[in-house]
């Protein structure tokens, strides 16, 4: 079962850079241990929170894109939950949405191609008419 998920989590702003590196690498090893793959890790940096969370006004956002099954997500969420500096996390499944977007894009591209094609054929007909 291969699905794509996006895991966004917030760690406290006073967390040391090395600790964050360590946390991310442990998550990565957890992913590979559960037969999943890490697509990308994006550090979105420090951001102001929309509301206070555990008396913090800021947080460091990290976005992790992984491929794998539900068991993997279960494991990752458990790890995030027990990791003390993690303030919040959110997991979103993105493969179906991506599929929908690809489909729309395909239809749009096809339509774009279809529009110039009929315009070209009358021209061709005209030229033949002129030559005849």
């Amino acid at each position, binding site marked *: 079962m291969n699905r794509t998920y996006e895991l*966004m989590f*917030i760690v406290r702003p006073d967390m040391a850079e090395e600790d964050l590196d360590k946390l991310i690498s442990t998550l990565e090893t957890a992913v590979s241990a559960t037969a999943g793959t890490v697509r990308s890790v994006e550090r979105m940096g420090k*951001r*102001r*929170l*929309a*509301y206070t*969370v555990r008396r913090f*006004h800021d*947080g460091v956002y990290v*976005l992790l894109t992984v491929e794998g099954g539900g068991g993997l997500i279960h494991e990752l969420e458990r790890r995030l939950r027990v990791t003390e500096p993690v*303030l*919040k*996390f*959110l997991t*979103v499944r993105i493969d179906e*949405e991506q599929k929908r*977007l690809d489909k*729309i*894009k395909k239809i749009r591209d096809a339509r774009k191609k279809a529009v110039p094609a009929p315009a070209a054929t009358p021209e061709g007909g005209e030229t033949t008419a002129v030559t005849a």
Partner: protein
Amino acid sequence: MAEETRATTAPTAEPAAPSEGHSHRPGPRGPRPGGGPGGPREGGRKYFRRKKVCKFCVEKIESINYKDVRLLAQFVAESGKIVPRRLTGVCTPHQRRLSSAIKQARNIALLPFAGRAN
């Protein structure tokens, strides 16, 4: 008085809105694509209402993502509430995606549940 209504643009048209008998409150700052919501456009007695259009359909925005705070913030009132469809003109399928995206963004502290983001 009549001149005032004629000269109105979006912000000044706002106070006139509740008097139409609609139940919406004047509070939320609605992102209205295409100017005033139902404000009187012409000096005549009849109200001319500009047809509201769905921003997502017009601009062909397909993905409504919870990370896109700038986009979502246009559809959140200052109180933090999701602005209803009847004020924004967003079509039903897009409003559905929009509201779920806003709720996701709230969960990860990108948007406030209530009140302004501080």
